[in-house]
Each structure stands twice: as structure tokens, then as C-alpha cells.
């Protein structure tokens, strides 16, 4: 159950629309089902009342939408940002991807969002409705007579279980209480993989990446992937390719995708959220983040506007690539 309600958000949005602070609202819109919430632009209190939703499935990070939508809006654009979204917001500002003056950002608290695939794993398919009831979700399906009650905490998305921060690093206005940067265990899974043998790791990734259907959802949802034209669509890049014709290209795509956001990725987890094949893509990003933290000192992309990403920076004392693999031995 979120601490902030749909009604509070609509009231805030309507107020800002009516007093002229903003001309449009970027918010979560009603989809076909209760769980497929869609990013939507609202222009009036009426539209908000009819279409705006806020529930445990509002995971979408709106920062990326600002790149295209903020420039087009006549006045300011209101955007609701969960704590993790604000990091992407700052990172995009660092990269000059939208005009800060065109945006009115309202920070909202987040209790963690649910993962629909985890819900379906319990309830089965054919979900007709999902409603929050205290700390539970009540699910009705076409195939079950009685509603199924699921504890929300049992179906939280992986990124929310390992939430890195409940603190907003950017906003014009904050609703609810400000949270703290959390000590999360988000690198545990990466560490577990690192501890495996190379063969085991290869088998793990072979299994995961071979499921890729190259739908590009990870790229399209990623707030760091805002290129005017992606390198994979650029014929002059030499790596242009559109489909995962074989396993090399699956790997190539995912290595390059992760490499291109390395140092810029805020670890918002959108890539894994949107992956229809449930590939744990965030692990690739977190591997880079973990490495960068260990090699070059702690760095959280988006924590500060105008911070210099580690891969476009250096010190004369940086470790050698060969030393990367020796570190463990030295400590032993």
C-alpha cells in the first residue's frame, strides 16, 4: 500500500494546473488491466479524474519521457517522481537532455512497487482485478471463484526489495516525508555470480541471454538510453543490428547496451522491469556499478547534477585492467 493516494496526487496536479504553474501533467494512466499502467499526459482536472491512477504497479520511471515531452509542452510539465526516478532526472539534466525550466517536479514517496509476474505466479493467469487492501493485494481472476489475497511485500519487484534510496535528490516540491539513502544488498547477486567459476557464469548468462527476443524494451525504457539514434540503429557504427540472429549478437547487444550506460546508469531497474523474457539485465548494470565503485571510489550516477561520470574521467593512479582480477588474491 502506497503512503500517498491517487486522490492526493490528483488534487496536487489539479491545483498546479489551475493556478497555471504547469500546463500538462505526466502521470500514470489507466490501462486495460489494473496492472498495466501506462505513462500518459493529462491536461485538465477532468482528464485526471477519468484516467489517472496510482497504485502498486506505477513503477514506470517518467524521467526519460521528459526528453521528448518537456520540449513540446507549452508551459511547464508536471512530473511525479519516486525517489529512484529522481536520480535519473538528475542524470538527464547532467547530460543536458531536457530543459529544467520546462519541468515542475513533485517528489512522491514510494513504498516499493509490485512485480506482476510475481503476482501471476501466485494467482495464476486471467487476472480480472487487483485492489490494494492495507498491506495486501486482493486479486480476482477469471478462473478462481474467491478473491486471492497476497501480501504486497511478497510480490515486490526485485529492485524495490533492494531499494537503494528513499531519498529524493531532485524536486521542486515534495509530497509526504523525505526518506533516507538506504544500505541495500543490491550487489549481493552480482557477488554471488562473481564467486562462481567462469564456466558456471557462462552457463548462467547463456541461459539468460538466449531468451532475448531483441524487442528493445530494455533500451526503450532505459532513462540513460535517450540517444537521438541508437548505436544499434546507426549504420556508421559498425554494430548496427536489429535482431538477435545468433548467440553472439545477444551477447554483443547486452554487453554494449550495459557498457554504454556504464557510469551513467542510476540503477533504476527499468530494464529488468520491462523485459518480457524476465532476463535479469540489471545485473549487468550493477556489475559495472560495483566495479566502478570498487575501482574508482563510490559513485552514484544522478546523485549530483554535473558530476562527471567515471568512464569519462580518470586519475593517474587508476588500477590496471590486469589488476582487476588480482585484487581478490592480494587481500587473501
Amino acid at each position: 500500500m502506497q503512503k500517498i493516494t491517487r486522490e492526493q496526487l490528483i488534487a496536487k496536479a489539479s491545483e498546479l494546473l489551475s493556478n497555471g504553474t504547469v500546463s500538462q501533467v505526466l502521470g500514470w494512466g489507466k490501462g486495460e488491466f489494473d496492472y498495466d499502467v501506462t505513462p500518459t499526459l493529462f491536461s485538465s482536472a477532468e482528464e485526471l479524474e477519468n484516467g489517472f491512477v496510482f497504485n502498486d504497479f506505477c513503477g514506470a520511471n517518467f524521467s526519460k519521457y521528459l526528453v521528448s515531452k518537456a520540449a513540446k509542452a507549452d508551459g511547464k510539465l508536471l512530473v511525479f517522481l519516486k525517489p529512484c526516478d529522481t536520480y535519473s532526472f538528475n542524470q538527464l539534466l547532467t547530460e543536458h537532455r531536457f530543459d529544467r525550466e520546462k519541468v515542475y517536479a513533485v517528489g512522491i514517496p514510494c513504498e516499493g512497487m509490485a512485480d506482476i509476474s510475481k503476482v501471476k505466479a501466485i494467482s495464476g493467469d486471467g487476472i480480472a482485478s487487483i485492489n490494494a487492501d492495507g498491506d495486501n493485494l486482493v486479486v480476482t481472476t477469471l478462473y478462481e471463484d474467491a478473491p486471492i489475497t497476497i501480501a504486497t511485500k511478497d510480490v515486490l519487484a526485485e529492485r524495490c526489495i533492494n531499494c537503494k534510496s528513499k531519498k529524493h535528490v531532485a524536486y521542486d516540491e515534495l509530497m509526504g516525508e523525505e526518506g533516507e539513502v538506504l544500505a541495500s544488498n543490491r550487489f549481493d547477486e552480482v557477488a554471488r555470480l562473481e564467486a562462481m567459476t567462469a564456466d558456471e557464469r557462462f552457463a548462467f548468462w547463456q541461459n539468460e541471454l538466449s531468451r532475448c527476443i531483441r524487442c528493445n524494451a530494455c533500451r526503450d525504457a532505459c532513462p540513460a538510453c535517450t540517444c537521438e539514434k541508437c548505436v544499434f540503429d546507426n549504420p556508421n557504427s559498425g554494430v548496427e543490428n536489429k535482431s538477435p540472429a545468433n548467440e553472439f549478437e545477444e551477447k554483443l547487444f547486452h554487453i554494449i547496451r550495459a557498457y554504454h550506460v556504464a557510469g551513467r546508469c542510476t540503477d533504476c531497474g527499468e530494464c529488468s522491469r520491462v523485459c518480457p523474457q524476465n532476463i535479469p539485465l540489471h545485473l549487468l548494470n550493477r556489475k559495472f556499478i560495483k566495479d566502478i565503485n570498487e575501482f574508482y571510489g563510490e559513485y552514484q550516477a544522478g546523485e549530483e547534477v554535473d558530476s562527471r561520470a567515471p568512464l569519462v574521467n580518470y586519475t593517474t593512479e587508476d588500477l590496471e585492467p590486469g589488476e582487476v582480477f588480482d585484487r581478490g588474491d592480494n587481500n587473501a
Partner: protein
Amino acid sequence: MQRVGVFVCWCGSNIAGTVDVKAVAEALKNEPGVVFSTDYQYMCSQAGQDMIINAVKEHNLTGIVVCSCSPRMHEATFRKTAAAAGLNPYMVEIANIREQCSWVHKDMALGTEKAIILGKAAVAKVNLNAPLTPGQSPVTKRALVIGGGIAGIQTALDIADAGFEVDIVEKKPTIGGKMAQLDKTFPTLDCAACILTPKMVDVAQNDKIRIFSYSEVAEVKGFVGNFDVTIKKNARYVKEDICTGCGACVEKCPMKKNPNEFNLGMDNRPAIYIPFAQAVPKVATIDPNACNMLKNGKCGVCARICTAGAIDYTQKDEYIEEKYGAIVVATGFNPISMDKFDEFAYNQSKDVITSLEFERLTNAAGPTAGHLERPSDGRSPKTIVFVQCVGSRCDACAEKGKEYCSKICCMYTAKHAMLVRDKYPETEVYVFYIDVRTPGKNFDEFYRRAVEEYGVKYVKGMVGKVVPEGDKLKVQASDLLANKQLHIDADLVVLAAAIEPDKSARPLATMLTASMDTNDFFTEAHPKLRPVESPTAGVFLSGACQGPKDIPETVSQASAAAAKVIGLLAKDKLTGNPCIAHSDELMCNGCSSCANVCPYGAITYEDKEFRMPDRTTKVRRVASVNPAVCQGCGACTVACPSGAMDLKGFANLQIMAEVDAICK
């Protein structure tokens, strides 16, 4: 499709000995685009080059591959050959089948196989080559020298001597810098003023040189050959062109008690002042923080006394925009602050001074008219302790001091000690040293003279603490060779403070996009081979802004920098390297990744309007590469996430084609 000609060189038996050149030529015939393939004994000979020229004409070749020695050897040669044949010189690729094939492999079969592969890679690349034309940019034939010390003065004089106009920007009211404050110079002991002031006069009288004193650089735009610089001329409240420097105002000014910067605060000056008698320009300056008229409108004595009418209380800071082809940084150094060195009691006793202060104390134009007197009571000191390496050669992690050796202290301390013993032979002089470093012509001889002829007591060890007690300074020190602790009652303690770059250097480096090391010394383009150039084209380094230096070294570097500037300004046009980065605006996101990694500051951003497919327009921030500044390293091409940035001559597709050819 290109029409490629392949020319395989035997290099006598150098290549042909381990590579079957005929087989190579034959194999490459079948590569895509190749219409002609041959081999010859010496491709670089006139006959070989003629063979290429004829083949280009005969077969309408558009690209050339020479399989020969290293491109580092003969790429330039074959580019000229191509140009002679009417081709663009950048349509040539070299396959290095000598240094990287025949000379390192002994097996004919393996060598031939590898030579064919290297040839294929070159063919694959040349198929994607495009004609490149080096950019040309005009050169503004004027130079700017930032800093008017001996470095800046020498550079300016040398440039002006070659017939080019030079402007000097100096933030103090006069040029002269640190050298003007010195008494004598080592190792010859001639007086600093006697050799410096004539040069200052030369600067003033040279019609090619303009001096912007009491001024600073406010903004730098542009690039090599074409800098646009904004100079901020601070208000000195005296009209420079009218003031005769007679000094009447200085004498009559009632606000007399202001610390005199030129004498390092050891005496006072009036609110209106001329730093020293030989100042250039010899013009008065009003200190706005000291002048009663400027502070509360009461006084006006100087304006009344000035018969020339030069005083102007309403003067404002002035911004002047100028164009230059080259910029020389000569911002110099300062001694570091002694605030953190409590053990030497610098802040507790007036009789603990820095070496630069000692220079003023012994200078005939200084606060004591050259008589060595203790700052506290004016008595002449009987025992003087010199301490070396104060704040130099410290640990990188130490809270105080610098890691480097300040280089000049050993010699000036020997000079000071020698001068004291010479003028006041009854004075006892101790020098505490860690090492005495005297590389330089006649330097060690000079130091030995101080010890052997003048009886200066050099003690290997360091001073641990100085405690003022009564009118004495209790100095506790170690004598490491005697394994003793010494206790000396000194009258004067002189600290050889480390030197550091002037504080103005850091913001200036940012403006110039010139790089600095962690100590804020400017970095040279190459530590051995290009010591007076900064990595930023058109920016040159003169004097101690690049590292600690004594006067002879500073002057030689200043002249070297001038020579580099003259070489640049002598050109009418600058021809660039055409293998530079360029950005595809349609794909650029304006994310600044490329600009962050560019070592030369060659990338700028502009907001550009783009027509969208739906006929609307959209303004986007996009990168543009300045062809005159880009050196073609390619760092930006990898930083660019979208692949909008590419490198001409080493394009993504070209390198990938080479990879493919090798791996086929």
C-alpha cells in the same frame, strides 16, 4: 567502389627474403576493389614511385595500397606520390610487411600468409577511405603574454624582436615580477635590478609591445591562431596616459600606513603609490581599500596636487577585447604561506622571515635601505639561521607543504649566507640542510665558496623548533653527522619557503582549457620533447608556471616559448591534421561525454534547429568539433554513446573492415 592498386615492395631482400612478394601481389588481385596489383624491388625509389604514378593514370586508380615498410617510415613519401599522380594523399594505405612481418618471422610460408592478410586489411580499409583535406585557418599575427615577470618580459621582447605585436597582461601595477624584488642573483652576484630594469625599459619603449598593467584576463575564446581574449583593466583611478610618475601625490597622500606589498608588508606605503622607483609603467595607482576619497568622499589631496590632472576618482574597471594568434602563460610563482609551520614561530616573531623577505631586507631599495636589521628592533643580527626545505619535499599525504623540490632554495640560501658573511663578517651564519642540490653551471662552485671562503656553517640536519625568548630566537636543531642536538641563540631565522604556482593560474588554465598537474603547475605537451608548449594548441608556457625554475632557466624557457610563438605567427594559414573527429549532428544528443574526455577542449556545443519529419522544428544541443584544435586522438569517439562522433581516417567502419579482413 574504389579502384585500388596494390604495390608490393621487396625492399631488396628485406621483405622478399621471408615473404613471397609475388604470391602476395597475386593473392591481393582477387580482393574486392583491386584492379591492379604488382611488385617491385624498391617501391620508395624514384622508379617505384613512377610506377605508382603511371599505374594510377593507366588504371584510373582511386586508392593505393603499398605493402612495404612501416607507415612511420614512408607513409609521407607515398602520400606525396599519390598527390603527384593527382590523387588525394589520404587515399593511400600502407600494409606494414617489413617491420611487422618479414623482419620478425622466419618461416616463408607463415610470413607470406601474414603479409597477404595485412594487405587485405589495408585494401579493406582503403575501400572505405574518403579524400581528406586538411582544414586551414588564418592566424592573427599578435601574441598575448600573461604575466609580466622576467619570463613574460623575455618572451615579449623576443616575439617583438621578430616583428610581431605583443601585449603583456600583468595584474600588479608594474611589470618586473619577483625578480624586481630580488637583491643579487646567483651565481654571479650581479644585482637583479641592474639586469632587469633595462629589460623593463626596453619593453616600455618597444613600439610592438603594449603593457596592460593592473589588469587580468577575464575570458578566452577561440583556438590556436584565433583567440578572442577579454582583458579586464582594473580601475587604478589614475589616467595612465597623463600621469608622469612624478610622485608628488605619493608624497602628499595623508593615508600613509598601508602595508607595502612590494616590500612584503615590512614597511608602509600611502594609499596612492608607485611600487618602486623603476616601475614600468611609472604611473601611480590608488588603492581603493585605503583611499579616503574613494571610501567616503573625503580628501582629494592627490587630485589637487597633481598638476597634470591625472587623478580620476570616477574611473571604472574597463573591459578590452583583443584578438591573438598565440598565448603565452607566464604567471610565475609565490612562496607558500608559513601559517601552518608553527614550529618555526613565523607568526610569533617578526625576526623569523622568509627568504623573499630577506631579499627585501638586504636590498638597497628595500625597507632598511639595504642595512641588515632585525625587523623587530632594528638591531643588526649577530647569529642568523637559515632553514632549507621549509614545505618542500613533503609527503603527499602531509597536511602542509609540497611534494616537490622547489629547486631554487639551495642556491639562493647559499647566496644569502655568502652575502651576509661578506658584508658582516662578524655574523655567525648557519644553514640547515637535508641535501644541497646544486646542478647548474658554476652552481656547486658557488656553494663551495660559501662554505670554504666565506665560512658559512652548513649543518646536515633540520631545525625542529624555534622559540622566541626575550630578544633571542632559541633554535633547536639536529646535527646528524655529529649525532648531536644543537641549541642556537639566533637573532634572525630565515625560512627557505617552498614555492607554488600563482593562485591566478588555476582559473586561467580553465579558461585556456590548458591542463595542470595536481600542484597547479601547467602541464607541458611533452615532458621532454615539447617542454614549452601546453597540450592546448596555441598556448605556450614560460617560466615558473610550468615548474620551479631559477632565472637562467626561466629566461631560456621564455625565449624558447617565444621561438615557438614566432614559428606559429610566421605562418599565414595553419594547416591542420585532417584525421580529426567530426560529429553527426542528426545523431548527437549533446550529452557532453565527448567534451568531458577531450584533452584539447576542441568540442563545443550549440543549440541548433532541426526540421522534424512532421515539419515542426526542434532545437537541440549538439556537439561541434573545432578542426583547428582537434588533434585526432579519438577519445571522444568511444565516449559517444550514440556513435555520432567518428574519426576521419580511422572511422569505425574502416577499423572494423580491418578487423574483418584480418579475422576472415
